[in-house]
């Protein structure tokens, strides 16, 4: 899922929260440079991690991140799960990107997101 977040250059440091719905898992996040290349590992966490900070607004604008979440469930039946990426700044949600998916019994899925930051 692709999206964008409009960051206030005068605001606080934006944050990213990864919400796992009806499932558990982990995620990894890479940041691209201003030219949209050379991804570098930026953050990683699990379904119980707290939101992580991005770069300062001035540095974050014009860049993009790629986040992959790996989620699963242990139920013996098919389950509807979701992973939602939320970009926040000063408590305000700048972007909410929900990705639902129905998983078969005892299976895992990969959810990937791209967020571009503008001002």
């Amino acid at each position, binding site marked *: 899922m*692709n999206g964008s977040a409009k960051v206030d250059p005068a605001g606080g440091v934006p944050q990213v929260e990864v919400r796992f719905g009806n499932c558990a898992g982990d995620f990894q996040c890479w940041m691209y440079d201003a030219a*949209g290349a050379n991804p570098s590992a930026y953050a990683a966490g699990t379904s119980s991690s707290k939101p992580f900070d991005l770069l300062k607004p001035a540095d974050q604008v014009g860049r993009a991140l*790629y986040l992959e979440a790996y989620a699963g469930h242990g139920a013996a039946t098919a389950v509807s799960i979701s992973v939602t990426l939320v970009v926040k700044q000063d408590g305000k949600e700048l972007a909410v990107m929900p990705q639902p998916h129905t998983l078969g019994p005892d299976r895992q899925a990969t959810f990937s997101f*791209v967020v571009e930051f503008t001002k």
Partner: protein
Amino acid sequence: MADAGSSTGLLFAAGFAVQRVVEILDPLFDLLSGGDARKKRLMAGLFSSLCGCALSGLGNLRILTMMNVTPAPAEWADIVVTGLAIGGGTEGVNSLLKYASYKKDQQQQIAQPAVAAPRRPPPTLEKAKEATGARS
């Protein structure tokens, strides 16, 4: 040979049928063995195994082939093993199928890589945009 699903059903049906026939013929075995329990058990066992082999041969049921045993067994050996399993009634068939399922699970676990491949992002933002979504 029938497909795996219908073969499993046929094996159970054959095992159940043999079990029922032995139960029905129980008084006859009593009579022929003269009340000797060991003789009776031997007769019933031989009879049910022969019935199992006959059903295996005529019904084209091959439990070793179903289990993908390597190297492939001789057909007569497959018929004898299947016959003995059918002769054991539903319990015999059940035990063998449980073993087959266990072996299959074990082979699948071996086939999986021990270490997950390292996670890598798409090299450019453009490629990343194309790659996003949910997949299982």
